[in-house]
């Protein structure tokens, strides 16, 4: 299987010399041919790219008073515009 090396190198932001292009193209072809055994392996859909799901920490809702304090800090609105202190 041929790898479109010029296109891939541009996306990967790697400048290749002519010699490197020739060598990497041949190596990529040989490596991917060697790995073709992977086709059709396993079950229909993979579960996750990681062997462990990331740990989700509990989401603790803030107290109502805290919410009000935060809302009070929002800039005042004048029509569709927000009024901010001078100097910002």
């Amino acid at each position: 299987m041929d790898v479109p090396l010029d296109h891939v190198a541009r996306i990967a932001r790697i400048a290749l010399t002519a010699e490197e292009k020739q060598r990497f193209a041949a190596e990529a072809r040989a490596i991917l041919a060697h790995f073709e055994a992977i086709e059709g392996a396993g079950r229909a859909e993979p579960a996750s790219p990681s062997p462990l799901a990331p740990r989700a920490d509990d989401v603790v809702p803030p107290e109502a008073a805290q919410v009000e304090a935060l809302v009070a800090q929002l800039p005042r609105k004048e029509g569709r515009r927000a009024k901010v202190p001078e100097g910002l």
Partner: protein
Amino acid sequence: MAKGEKRPAVTLEGPDERVAKALERVAADTHNAFLHVARDARPAPGPWSGKTLAVKDNLAVRGMPLTCGSAVLKDHVAAYTATAVERLVARGLTVVGKTNLDEFGCGSSGERSAFGPTKNPRDPTRVPGGSSSGAGAAVAAGLADFALGSDTGGSVRCPASFCGVVGLKPSYGLVSRYGLVDMAMSLEGPAPMARDTRGVALLLDAMAGPDPRDPVTLATRPVEGGYAFQLEQAPKALKIGVPREFLQGLAPEVERATREAMARFAGDGARVQEFDLPEAKLALPAYYLICYSEFASAMQKFDGYRYGARAAQDAKLAETTAANRAAFGAEVKRRILLGTHITMKEVKGKWYTAALRARDALAEAFGRAFREHDVLLAPTMPFPAFKLGERVADPLAMYAADVLTVSANLAGIPAGSVPFGGDGLPIGLQFMGPRGHDLQVLQAMRKWEKLKYGGP
């Protein structure tokens, strides 16, 4: 000693002398194991004060260079310390230097560092194994008491096997990756090395545990008394499984050693059974395809702006990035190119998604195997250390060296390498256990040391 004769005076070395002598040895390193020496290091306070630690140069130690064996990072200095290193220093270990490695961990021989290859202390004409080449050589040559490497596909077990020392790849998530320069984030983790199993168990006791700075660290219950404390408690009737696929294509001396170990365990009362694990044949392609993909993504940050050498002050972004990335070595470029290619939407299903499916199948197969067996036994490497330069020009020949180690990283399970022992080039025996059961693996490794060498 005759009655009345005076005992000769004995001078005990204190931590200061021990560290000073270790630094002299490191400065005189002839194996190219160290890239940087911590010349002003002083013993840290703690129960292990005076003992020394070599740290692979892809783990951050504040104020010390962090090159990852790459010319791209030759002037980079770490701004913080990795959690694993922090926890070891808190026990009193002194970091005596940063060790050589294959560039960004891309290699299995220790020959792909931008700062030259590491030599195997057991035979300087041979490779020490990689990618934690300097860490393995440092412990084998007695330059440091312990070493901290990282294992993505066998990077600690391979040098342990080739250099005749002990290395453990802990369960994925047991040790924090904070401060480890990522290569393939779903496969890797910091991994301890020492001259014996007790040493790696002690390091694991210090390093293991949750870290809020690494969200995939496991919130597991600590082992009662610690890994080192429970090391001798392996059950007499250990159930050991040996996957037949792991006995194929071995060098004759490696197969002989493995079969002798199986016989010695059976003679000691263990139940040793060979069994089929056909999914193991998918491990090497699955590993490399996933590794390429994650590596290509991880390397995007080395663009000369966020990290890496910057081009001329007035250079444009594209010029800076191209100039910076041109300094990557051949294997790094090869992996970035392949990783970029196989994750393109036109071919992603054929390669990357197929590799993830294979990984699932392999992890499930290991899960089934551990319902029958306490641990799995296999050689660590299919052959002993090869000659410097023998495989470096052939990427497929180099990848083939990892065939027995990559499965553990794909499945996220613990695996350790312990020397078979005896004369000649070192050969490593590998034990694997269920995820989170690192103690079982350490106990089996310790059991082998006792079977081979006797002792309490």
